């Protein structure tokens, strides 16, 4: 009886950095499909407002406020998923951009650089360590949010970009290491978007020509429709002209 209820229970997705921008877009798309969304963000106020939105579209949101760079926050995220009894999707979206305006690497404040790596590389790995048994039980998916800065070499983007390049390699490695658990891992470059983070990278400049994060919704629809084993280990660009299934 219990097992049957669990199999019929709504799918569960955990999204970090879910209170705004891309994280909010993904959370709403999943909630609209009936996912229970465990929504995480650093500050409680915006997260509460986002949770109200998720509730309005029919989701069953659970808020966990706090910085994913902290072990106690990650533990609370795991407990939330354990209470729901399953975890089908982990989206490592929370990211640290670094100082605004973006400093060149030769003058990059090292504490800020360490902070970027803690949030963008160490925290996603730590969350995978924390959530692996739950993900394995659902043969779940991990989506790590990358950036074109991971391959670009753009001046000023060295701190953030290098952390995302590291995350790309984390994704590829995890895809191999977690295959035996049936867990799929992909890396997604969402492309330039009109978000608070993108604005912080270009203080005082207009970014009105960039699309809103909703532009990525068809990509998430496509990605989640693919056989997870086929796409695992691959990197996708959400705003690319074509999304190809690897041969």
């Amino acid at each position, binding site marked *: 009886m219990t097992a049957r209820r669990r199999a019929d229970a709504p799918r569960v997705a955990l999204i970090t950095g879910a209170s705004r921008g891309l994280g909010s877009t993904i959370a709403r798309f999943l909630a*609209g499909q009936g996912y229970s969304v465990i929504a995480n963000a650093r500050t409680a106020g915006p997260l509460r407002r986002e949770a109200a939105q998720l509730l309005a579209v*029919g989701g069953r949101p659970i808020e966990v406020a706090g910085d994913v760079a902290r072990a106690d926050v990650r533990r609370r995220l795991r407990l939330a998923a354990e209470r729901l009894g399953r975890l089908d999707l982990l989206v490592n979206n929370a990211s640290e951009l670094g100082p605004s305006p973006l400093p060149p690497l030769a003058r990059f404040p090292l504490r800020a650089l360490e902070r970027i790596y803690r949030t963008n590389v160490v925290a996603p790995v730590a969350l995978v360590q924390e959530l692996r048994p739950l993900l394995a039980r659902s043969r779940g998916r991990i989506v790590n949010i990358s950036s074109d800065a991971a391959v670009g070499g753009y001046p000023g983007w060295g701190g953030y970009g290098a952390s995302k390049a590291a995350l790309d390699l984390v994704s590829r490695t995890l895809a191999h290491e977690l295959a035996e658990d049936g867990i799929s891992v992909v890396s997604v470059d969402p492309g330039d978007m009109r978000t608070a983070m993108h604005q912080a990278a270009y203080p005082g400049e207009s970014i009105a020509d960039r*699309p809103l994060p909703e*532009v990525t919704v*068809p990509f998430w629809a*496509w990605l989640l429709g693919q056989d997870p084993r086929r796409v695992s280990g691959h990197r996708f660009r959400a705003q690319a*002209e*074509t*999304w190809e299934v690897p041969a």
Partner: protein
Amino acid sequence: MIGPGSAATWPRFPEADRPPEERGLARDAVRLLVSTGDGEVDRRFADLPTLLRAGDLLVVNDSATVPASLPARGDAGEFLLNLSTEYGPGLWLAEPRWGVGRPGPLPLRVGDRFRAGSLEARVVGAFPGIPRLRFVRLRGNVRATMARRGRPIRYGHLAEVRPLADYQTIFARSPGSAEMPSAGRPFTPSLLDRLRARGISVASITLHTGVSSLELEPAATAAVPIYPEPFEVPVATVEAIAAARCRGGRIFAVGTTVVRALESTVGPGGLRPGRGFTRLYLHPGRSVRAFDGLLTGLHDARSTHLALMAAVVGADRLESAYRGAAARGYLWHEFGDSHLILPEATALPSAAS
């Protein structure tokens, strides 16, 4: 000048409201406008073998049309749910409409539930930039429900209900198109025999078309996104194209769907096999690399099609060809006449009939 933004000045053309079979013609008896480097000549589709050369290759779309229009009912009342594209198990992009000639919009919000055929449905979200298209989640066997309750999608200019067979081409193998990939419709078994006898071969790609909902296409749409469609360019087709080029043959794309599939997987290293979704937008200024000629229908003022055609033919050449065809009574739309665009260097074929 034809291209994005000029559709408002594009004249209206006479439309075929019935298949040629009901006008007393065989499928391959429709007219064929032939554009050469020197201008246009008038032929019949059945003349195709005489207009091509031994060694040429036709690439066709083998997608089959599905009965994608389902009766639906919800708080808003009764409506149609036209299924456009399957994204994954149970997740579809769809266009809810009040009826065949009444597009909407419908007051459907994210999270709303309704029934489509016998299926439970739920609105997941809007398609970015095209709010008339919604993602919906359907519970149950969608294909079986389509087979039982679905009808081919149709719009105002075709008020009559027609059998699904009218919307299938001879190449239809892989079910999934919301609307017929119509460029292949005039082909018949006997025409294929005569093409083969002339040394002209056929290879296929798959591209499942989404809804077109003509009357809702904005006039000036440079900024309107094309929604992605599922496609596959198989290994065998890449090999057939390479072999044709090797023997000096030319590659003819049959339809804009084939153009989009081929151009989606062509790169600096040439054409490669591929499978996924594409929203490739071909427009003047973007080079065409994967084929030499095009066999297609006569396209109305949907600017994405016009832009694609202008990219292939050149805007001025296309406009003069279309104006001439309209003056000579060619019929537009999926049941209408066809257009063969030969590579620029091709001489006018000697009299074929």
